[in-house]
């Protein structure tokens, strides 16, 4: 045989087999295994045969075939166990600071890991409560050429889509059309906006929402019926059964409660407080049969094991249906499928029902959790082995008194497993206490009850025990291998060259991570600060706004304005269809001067009034604002922003026509969306009656005597719009809310960075302590020979600080690259200045120096008589 060694089963697994197998079975079983291996090699090649061999051996690891293990480890010797426990406990108490650092560091690491793991598990648990979750898909569409906020994908579906899907493709088992919408409800005097799920009667065939009382499916066939969730039923009707009671809907009709559904879990990608037929949507009638009525969401259920790509490939026929409705557009929709469970983390397309998270953040969170746990584990092991270095006399004594090797191994292992276990218990307690704080920090509602949290705890316990075992192993094996004389002389714990190198690598790794995280958190903080303070092009202070819907008060606007401004602290009022927070209304215009109707411009629109531009303190680049002095303004004038003028390729816009109106002014670009989007073309037109039923009342106040002004505002609005709830919001708060996620992210990131740095320092502290223990005599001799204290401090510190410096050098390019990529997601961003890197590097060095010197100064100050006396 040419390649003899290669054609044999792997040696290690064979010895494993021989080790565990019952001696009277080992011969024929090994023969069987080998025979099979020889045959598999012939049939499938060596590589596969080896894998199968390993699998076979692992499958033979069964109680019936395993030999019985004699109690060589004496783990259950009660007297010894008690002794180990007592000695271990005394040892912990004797070195209090060590114990504190060791347990504290491990506990801290575990707390971080468990919390982050819970968060990750929670994010991954989305939609898990639906019985068919793995088979449900959302039908979304691509509109090539219709770019909106940087994407041409839309999470929307037209009304005829679901019936067509069912008809064309038999593999679509069931499907539902739905939409969430905030509708106005009133009961007696009270009225509220409530978020509801408007769906067809197949909803319950697709999604799992248990009905507690009354009817489900039948209620969706009847547009006069409504199903409340338990909490909404309680809000309106208290403890009494709501079945048969009525609610006034959209100031228009009366709905009868026919069912009560359990509250839907928070971890799904849309939220609602009641379910009713989608026929109750205002635009339902107009959308029947219209293929461009993109006001709905479509969900389908496919057979188990069916590859949804297969269905997608057949969608051409579907697209053809839709195409006819899009004749006058420059684009056509193409439908595609998104697995339900991917939506929360992997779908970032337009018009998502709620803002989704991003799988990248999950990866990042998982990475941070693992890094922190790794840092803590490295420390734990370093410290544990360092601590045992001081115990060589004890080991020697035990050996002289007849301790067996196994007993010593046992003792060390038990001690370190005890510490690990203790840390785990502490960590669990802290997690329980800290979870509410953590929830507030990350703005989630994670409870310990959800599925998957048990896996987190189980995993943690396993890691803790493994860690305890591993870190006990090193000193256990080292000490037990030494001869009693060597151990008594204190010589068994020599610093081996390889050991030092490994530890250096670990320290560099720890500090590199900590510095990268530190730089990242500074950059995140600075970018968020930049966003918060960047000139927006408008003023957002002292502004309060009240959104309203479906009220017809266009004629009474002036009266309302007059009444509101009667209050001395209220300065200005404006009515606008959108606010410069998150303007979403966009459309096309194809008529402007110099365009023969060939091109079209996508442009954001905002319908305002005479006071809008003044109230927001926007400035005009040229032209003038709308004014009541020009009666034609309301019908024949328009104001553009700079970006629109630029997009049209005009030098000056004044006097030109756009959308059949005359441009009278150009407003300086202002941010009307979040900072990850560049400013795009927009026009500001005067609001008309037709557009007035939706919008916002913006109020500028001096903010003095705010309670009084608010009372006046509420009284006035209630008088003018008695049928809708008045909810006032502050402009600057709403603005900050847009960046809430980034802000939370920054905060959380900073906290975990601090912890990582802290843990890294603890590791360094432990190592220095270890180093000093080993060099006690050297320091003593140096002092006798005349070394000064700074000499000695420098001598020991130098090596460690060099490691931190190396870490800084490695960390800077990594951080620069990573943060550069993060910043690219923002259309408006800060520069990565060199000083950020320099400061963080120096900071790390400084902290490391402080950590090191607390130990070295102490060691250098010791009297050489004390250190040299011991032999």
């Amino acid at each position: 045989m040419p390649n003899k060694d290669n054609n044999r089963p792997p040696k290690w697994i064979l010895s494993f087999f021989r080790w565990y197998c019952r001696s009277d079975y080992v011969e024929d079983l090994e023969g069987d295994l080998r025979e099979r291996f020889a045959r598999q090699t012939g049939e499938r090649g060596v590589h596969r045969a080896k894998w199968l061999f390993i699998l076979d051996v692992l499958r033979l690891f069964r109680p019936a075939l395993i030999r019985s293990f004699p109690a060589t480890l004496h783990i259950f010797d009660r007297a010894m166990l008690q002794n180990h426990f007592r000695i271990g406990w005394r040892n912990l108490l004797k070195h209090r600071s060590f114990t504190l650092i060791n347990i504290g560091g491990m506990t801290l690491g575990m707390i971080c890991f468990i919390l982050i793991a819970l968060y990750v598990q929670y994010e991954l648990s989305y939609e898990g409560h639906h019985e068919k979750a793995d088979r449900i898909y959302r039908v979304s569409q691509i509109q090539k050429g219709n770019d909106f906020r940087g994407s041409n994908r839309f999470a929307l579906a037209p009304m005829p889509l679901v019936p067509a899907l069912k008809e064309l493709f038999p593999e679509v088992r069931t499907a539902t059309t739905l939409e969430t919408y905030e509708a106005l409800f009133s009961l007696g005097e009270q009225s509220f906006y409530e978020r509801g799920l408007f769906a067809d009667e197949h909803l319950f065939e697709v999604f799992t929402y248990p009905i507690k009382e009354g009817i489900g499916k039948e209620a969706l066939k009847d547009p006069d019926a409504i199903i409340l969730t338990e909490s909404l039923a309680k809000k309106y009707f208290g403890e009494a059964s709501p079945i048969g009671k009525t609610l006034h809907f959209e100031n228009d009709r009366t709905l009868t409660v026919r069912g009560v559904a359990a509250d839907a879990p928070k971890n799904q990608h849309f939220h609602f407080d009641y379910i009713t037929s989608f026929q109750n949507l205002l635009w339902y009638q107009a959308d029947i049969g219209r293929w461009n009525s993109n006001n709905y969401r479509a969900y389908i259920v496919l057979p188990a094991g069916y590859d949804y790509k297969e269905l997608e490939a057949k969608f051409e026929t579907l697209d053809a249906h839709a195409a006819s409705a899009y004749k006058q557009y420059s684009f056509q929709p193409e439908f595609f499928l998104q697995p339900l469970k991917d939506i929360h983390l992997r779908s970032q397309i337009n018009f998502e029902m709620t803002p989704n998270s991003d799988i990248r953040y999950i990866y990042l969170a998982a990475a941070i959790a693992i890094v922190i746990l790794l840092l803590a584990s490295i420390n734990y092991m370093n410290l544990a082995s360092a601590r045992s270095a001081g115990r060589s006399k004890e080991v020697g004594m035990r050996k002289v008194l007849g301790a067996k090797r196994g007993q010593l191994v046992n003792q060390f292992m038990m001690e370190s497993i005890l510490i690990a276990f203790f840390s785990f218990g502490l960590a669990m307690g802290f997690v329980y206490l800290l979870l509410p704080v953590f929830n507030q920090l990350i703005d989630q509602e994670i409870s310990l009850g959800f599925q998957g949290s048990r896996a987190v705890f189980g995993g943690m316990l396993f890691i803790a025990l493994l860690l305890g075992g591993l870190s006990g192993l090193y000193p256990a094996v080292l000490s037990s291998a030494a001869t009693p004389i060597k151990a008594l002389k204190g010589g068994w714990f020599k610093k081996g060259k390889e050991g030092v190198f490994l530890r250096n690598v670990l320290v560099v790794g720890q500090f590199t991570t900590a510095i990268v995280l530190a730089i990242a958190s500074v950059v995140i903080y600075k970018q968020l600060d930049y966003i918060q303070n960047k000139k927006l092009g408008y003023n957002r202070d002292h502004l309060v706004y009240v959104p309203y819907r479906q009220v017809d008060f266009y004629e009474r606007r002036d009266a309302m304005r007059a009444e509101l401004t009667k209050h001395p602290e209220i300065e200005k009022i404006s009515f606008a269809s959108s606010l410069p927070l998150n303007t979403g209304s966009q459309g096309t215009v194809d008529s402007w001067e110099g365009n023969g109707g060939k091109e079209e411009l996508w442009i954001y629109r905002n319908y305002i009034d005479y006071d809008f531009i003044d109230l927001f303190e926007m400035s005009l680049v040229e032209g003038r604002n709308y004014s009541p002095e020009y009666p034609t303004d309301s019908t024949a004038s328009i104001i553009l922003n700079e970006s629109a003028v630029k997009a049209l390729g005009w030098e000056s816009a004044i006097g030109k026509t756009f959308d059949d109106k005359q441009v009278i002014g150009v407003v300086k670009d202002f941010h009307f969306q979040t900072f990850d989007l560049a400013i795009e073309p927009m026009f500001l037109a005067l609001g008309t009656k037709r557009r007035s039923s939706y919008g916002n009342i913006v109020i500028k106040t001096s903010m003095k005597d705010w309670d009084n002004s608010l009372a006046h505002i509420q009284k006035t609005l209630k008088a003018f719009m008695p049928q809708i709830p008045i909810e006032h919001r502050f402009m600057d708060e709403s603005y900050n809310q847009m960046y809430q996620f980034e802000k939370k992210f920054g905060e959380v990131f900073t906290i975990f960075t601090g912890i990582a740095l802290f843990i890294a320092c603890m590791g360094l502290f432990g190592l220095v302590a270890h180093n000093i223990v080993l060099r006690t005599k050297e320091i003593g001799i140096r002092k006798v020979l005349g070394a000064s204290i700074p000499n000695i401090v420098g001598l020991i510190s130098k090596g460690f600080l060099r490691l931190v410096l190396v870490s800084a050098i490695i960390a800077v390019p990594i951080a620069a690259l990573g943060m550069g990529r993060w910043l690219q997601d923002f259309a408006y961003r800060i520069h990565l200045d060199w000083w950020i890197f320099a400061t963080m590097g120096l900071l790390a060095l400084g902290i490391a120096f402080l950590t090191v010197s607390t130990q070295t100064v102490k060691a250098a100050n010791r009297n050489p008589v004390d250190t040299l006396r011991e032999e």
Partner: protein
Amino acid sequence: MSKHHLGEFEEIVMLTVAILHDEAYGIAIIDEMERRLDRKVSIGALQTVLRRLEKKGHLSSRFGEATHKRGGKRKRYFTLTTYGRKILETTKEQRLGLWNAIPDLDFKNGYAQ
């Protein structure tokens, strides 16, 4: 009779051992079962059952010859004991009794008429 109760897998293993007569060792049994029943069997599962049956006295075993392919390790051949054979026969009779007790079976539709 519950003492003599055989599991489904146990029964199949014993039958296969009986079929192979004097040639029943680990690999051969697996091959035979895979061939006749189109059923994947892992060494671990089979060996556990073989040893259990041997312990119960249904099977007996002896060492056979060693081959080069087996790395010089001997085979262990299994044979049915008299007791084992009796148990198999009892099981078969019980089954047949059950089958015979079914009134007028319509095999096509799978239910009795």
